[in-house]
């Protein structure tokens, strides 16, 4: 299993170093620095040198690195790294060099808690927060004398939930957040379109509630033989929070669970078929001789006109020898950013069913080596509220509790794209 855990900064300096086992020396950090950080050729997240494997995850110019000497489950090691990042985020907000330096005592405490002799342990944030506390994370809901309960809870059947939770108002919020990935060829054919979905839940429910959750998932629907509804969605790679009873899901396709208290990620999924693209980009880019390039880019929204896309940012790549760009836009603002070799067009809001067009001309300078412009893709970022690109809908969320209290349930949908919604031209 994991023999050591490190955090490096951009320059390869060690910020955090924790050896879980004795089969490694502390100097192994130098190996990583030399072989990975300083070596710009290596960008694979897993490097095996000799019998030692380095797994690394980059976040905000930090390298979060796990080292192992044995044939460990790579997915598990990465999950552990990402989980550490999530925990760190919830403890001190941003995970960057400065916050790591400011919180290094806390970090050591955390990584000792969530890992024992290289084996990952309970990494549930809410549970951790009950006994690893800081100034900002006060253990309010557990009196000090009850700390013995921690042990019971940690080793009990539902290690993620305390038994004695009480709320005046029993509420549950469900957020369905979808990230659309698109790559579209210059001819307008979709090369790849898929949706990464996360279902986040915030449960403020008393007692030990038993929840049941239903989606318009094809499998579920087929199972329950109600094929009358035609809008069933095919989901791939569903992953659930540990509270979900997998055996029940396997046999009856129902998602039933006892939720942890507070916020958690109930499930993640992927959908690759019938992806509804909320924005369509129609670019016409022509190179006029060697001295200029003209752009005509039309953006169409492709959803109900009651909804709207916000924070739309379109990045139009320019040739590397661009000197100036003149832009004309009816909506939002567009300007040439030489530092990134793009024209950035920002539109705060577009209603559904609308279309806007940018026209621009880039002036070029002559270069020594005539190189054909590589034409990198146009990149689009946006957010659309109350819209799911996969068409997923939460059909029900039922809460059963011994006391049979009434609970209020809220569902919210969000579709967004950041960095991977790309159109070639």
């Amino acid at each position, binding site marked *: 299993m994991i023999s050591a855990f490190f955090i490096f900064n*951009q320059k390869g300096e060690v910020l955090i170093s924790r050896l879980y086992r004795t089969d490694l020396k502390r100097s192994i950090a130098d190996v990583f620095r030399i072989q990975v950080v300083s070596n710009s050729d290596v960008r694979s997240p897993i490097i095996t040198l000799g019998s030692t494997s380095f797994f690394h995850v980059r976040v905000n*110019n930090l390298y979060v690195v796990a080292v192992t000497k044995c044939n460990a489950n790579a997915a598990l090691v990465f999950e552990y790294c990402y989980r550490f990042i999530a925990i760190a985020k919830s403890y001190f907000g941003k995970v960057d060099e400065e916050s790591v330096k400011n919180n290094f005592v806390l970090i050591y405490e955390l990584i000792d808690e969530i890992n024992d002799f290289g084996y990952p342990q309970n990494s549930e944030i809410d549970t951790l927060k009950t006994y690893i506390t800081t100034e900002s994370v006060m253990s309010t809901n557990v009196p000090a004398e009850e700390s013995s309960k921690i042990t019971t809870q940690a080793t009990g059947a539902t290690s993620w939930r305390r038994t004695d939770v009480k709320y005046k108002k029993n509420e549950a919020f469900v957020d369905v957040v979808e990230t659309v990935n698109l790559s579209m060829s210059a001819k307008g054919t979709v090369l790849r379109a898929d949706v990464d979905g996360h279902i986040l839940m915030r449960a403020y429910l008393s007692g030990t509630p038993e929840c049941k959750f239903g989606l318009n998932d094809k499998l579920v629907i087929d199972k329950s033989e109600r094929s009358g509804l035609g809008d069933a969605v095919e989901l791939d790679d569903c992953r659930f929070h540990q509270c979900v009873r997998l055996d029940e899901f396997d046999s009856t396709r129902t998602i039933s669970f006892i939720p942890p208290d507070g916020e958690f990620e109930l499930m993640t999924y992927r959908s690759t078929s019938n992806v509804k693209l909320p924005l369509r980009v129609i670019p016409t880019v022509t190179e006029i001789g060697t001295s200029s390039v003209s752009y005509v880019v039309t953006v169409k929204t492709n959803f109900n006109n009651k909804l709207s896309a916000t924070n739309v940012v379109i990045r139009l790549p320019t040739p*590397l*020898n*661009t*000197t*100036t760009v003149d832009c004309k836009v009816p909506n939002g603002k567009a300007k040439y950013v*030489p*530092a*990134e*070799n793009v024209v950035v067009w920002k539109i705060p809001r577009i209603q559904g069913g609308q279309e806007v067009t940018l026209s621009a001309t880039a*002036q070029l*300078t002559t*270069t*020594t*080596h005539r*190189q054909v412009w590589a034409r990198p893709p146009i990149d689009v970022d946006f957010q659309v509220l109350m819209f799911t690109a996969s068409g997923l809908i939460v059909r029900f969320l039922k809460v059963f509790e011994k006391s049979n209290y009434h609970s209020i349930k809220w569902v919210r949908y969000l579709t967004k794209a950041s960095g991977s919604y790309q159109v070639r031209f």
Partner: protein
Amino acid sequence: MRGLTQFIADIRGARVRELEEKRINKEMANIRKRFKDGNLDGYQKKKYVAKVIFTYILGYKVDVGHMEAVNLISSPKYSEKQIGYLAVTLLMHENSDFLRLVVNSIRKDLNENNEINNCLALHAIANVGGQEMAEALAEDVHRLLISPTSENFVRKKAALTLLRLYRKHPEVIPAAEWALRIVALMDDTDLGVVICVTSLVMALAQDHLDAFAVCYQKAADRLYRLVVEHEFAATYAYYKVPSPWLQVKLLRLLQYYPPTEDVTLRKVLHEVLQAIMANSAEPSRNVQHNNAQHAILFEAIGLAIHLDTNSPLVTTAAVLLARFISSKETNVRYLGLDTMAHLAARTDNLDAIKRHQGTIILSLRDKDISVRRRALDLLYSMCDTDNSELIVGELLRYLKIADYGLREEMVLKIAILTEKYASTYKWYVDTILELISAAGDHVGDEVWYRVVQIVTNTEDLQPYAAKVVFEYMKSPSSHESLVKVGGYILGEYGHLIANEPGYSPLEQFQVLHSKSQFCVAPTRALLLSTYIKWVNVFPEIKGQLVNVFERYRHVLDVDLQQRACEYYTLASRPDDDELLQNVCEEIPPFPPRESALLGRMNKKHLDTEDKRTWIHGGKDANVEREATRKNTRKLTLGDVNGTGATNGVAHAADAAAGQDATNETINSLLGLELSTSPSSGTAPAFPNMQSAPAAALAEAGIPRLTVNASVDRWYEKLTYTADGVLYEDVQLQIGIKSRYHGHIGQLAVYLGNKVNAPLTSFTTTLHVEDPDAVSVSFAKLATNTIAPRTQTQQLIHIECKKPFSKPPILSVSFLAGSHQTIAIRLPIVISKFVEHVKLGQADFFERWKIIGGPPREAQSIFPIKLDDAGHIDIARQRQVVSGYSLNVLDGLDPNPNNIVAAGILHMSEDGKVGCLMRLEPNREAKLCRITVRSTSEAVAAEMQRLIQKPLGADSIS
């Protein structure tokens, strides 16, 4: 340039690579915009180009600013020009199209009188060094190097630039043509210039030995002045050692040339080397001093060995080396072993080295691999019949623990030594088989080919070899090479031992066949051939053998299958069939030939840049190599002079050398005579000889004669007079005084400077076409400057050994503003060594008759001029004849107009040769008949030619 400073500061300050990239993209966009807008002044251009350069240095692609850089070069301001040059050298590679635009600006800067601009341009040329640039600018760089107005540091840079260009594009530099001019710079007063020029000369001289022959004298002279006379500027002393770098270079340069014949030079060099060795004796003050001393000492020892291995210097050197090879410092040990290998490669007497055999063998176990390698080389070189068994045994023992990288070379060396110094065949077979079984994978095919060859050619050895091989084969794991040797030898000679107990055919078969399953296809094929031979000689095991063939008929390997099928058919023929016997006739001995092993050894030394002047191996190897080198040199010289030496031999040698290794091996194994006709793709040695005779002459180091009417007249006059003017022009006068006695002569050459400036870098060299026939040498090294309006004298010692026809050439070169070279024939002709002899009438005619007619008689009839009165100028004729040292014998001939004369030619090698002459002028016909009879044909012809020349009507005097 605050903008630039700010830009660099920003980039340095960027925490993350992405930020750095952003900053650079932004800056580049700005620069693009500025460049596009145009109207930039020099300062702005300089600033932006500097930013572009900085970005480029950081590793980013840059594709603007080239044009601006080119513009900056032609800017009048230094700072702008500098940035422009920097950009050109950094941004442009040697094949860049932009370089064409720069060439003219660079040329302009080279031609300018400003030395800073010159230096910038030289830097650019050296750094870029493209073919096109070299072609266009080499001429200008050379001019800068030789120009008397150049500053010292410009000349230094120019020399190094030329060196760089030569290394990259040797064909661009007309090295031979420039040779004399460049060598003249080795006399410069500034040692820095001398070091740079010497580096250049070293590179050029390696490829153009003859053209640069003058540098030998210069180097010796400079060394003498540095080491013995301590003539150097204080700034060039490095820890009190006078310019060690220069000394090392000069000593190395001297090793490129064959040891000089010139007695004076030898004496000078001896003195220098002695001084160096004496210096090394003094204890070193510190590391740097020690290093400098050692560097010089090792080169000096190398030179001493190169010059003469029998000199007392080498004895001293051997003692020093012995101390070095047991030194504590690895570097010293390494150099000691290497130099000792040089000594071993050259010396006749290995005793001095053998004394340290133990230390050297111990060095095989040194902790440093390069030292081990040198020790191996040395052991290989120092091996001879006396110590071969010990050394080979030691090497064999070491082989088992040696590094893998070293093993293959070791195997080769052991194999060569074993063969070369084998005292008994038994020892040879034992050793080589042990070698094969020990080294296994590292044994090249050549090794076992050679074993087979030797065993086949030595009848006495065959039974013993068969037995030993059989014993080796019995061991459970034998290497494939051993199986191959075993298969071959047992197949051929197995029957010789078959009658002895333990070696029966069946046992032989079982042992050999048990190995076959572990072998690759070619080895199995060889084993099949062995079996068919056995079918012939061992009918008792025919059954098993046929069985094997039967099985192999179905294997997938084509070669194996074909052999098996053929052998099967052959074996299944009726017993009385003679075909099998004929096919399996014993292999006849191989024709004797050189071992392929040596060829393989020596190939390894070919591709080093700084050529070694010797090869590893005993003295014989080196002597042989020298001989071939000399031969090829002679041949090419022959070509140049058109004396009719055919190219055939050289071509044959070239063609042989050109064959690739496999060919060589096959050749030597099978004794095939591959046709080595001259047309087989080898170009003539000097393809452009005819088209460019001047260059060719220069290449061969033969000075080009200075020709004009008066030079010929002076020369001709001096051939029959002792003193006179040999050459004269506005700057220089050369006068001659000579004295001869027997085969020895002494020539005093008076060199007079006629101008009001000193003649510097004054060099006189002698060139003799046939050094075996006549030897000439200066009595001492000449001074290299002649003060204004003064004269110096140089003595030349002459010795006549054999008849010769081409007079020695004196070439004089000096700097008087420009570099000038004068090459003139010295009036040293065969007649100078003739002494008067007095003969009576009877004696004369008796000898005259004994010698008889052609070929020992040379006769010709030639027109003569009459004097103003219409008479024959008898007085002059007599004067000429006696000027040629023949004794005019009066009263011998009845006709008083006829002249009869006699003399004896003295030669140190060919002894004395009598020479009789008769001159018969005819006034009416204005003709004259000359008859020369001599016991040597060559002498007769030469004398006739000499005497006729001044007498003839077309004589110029």
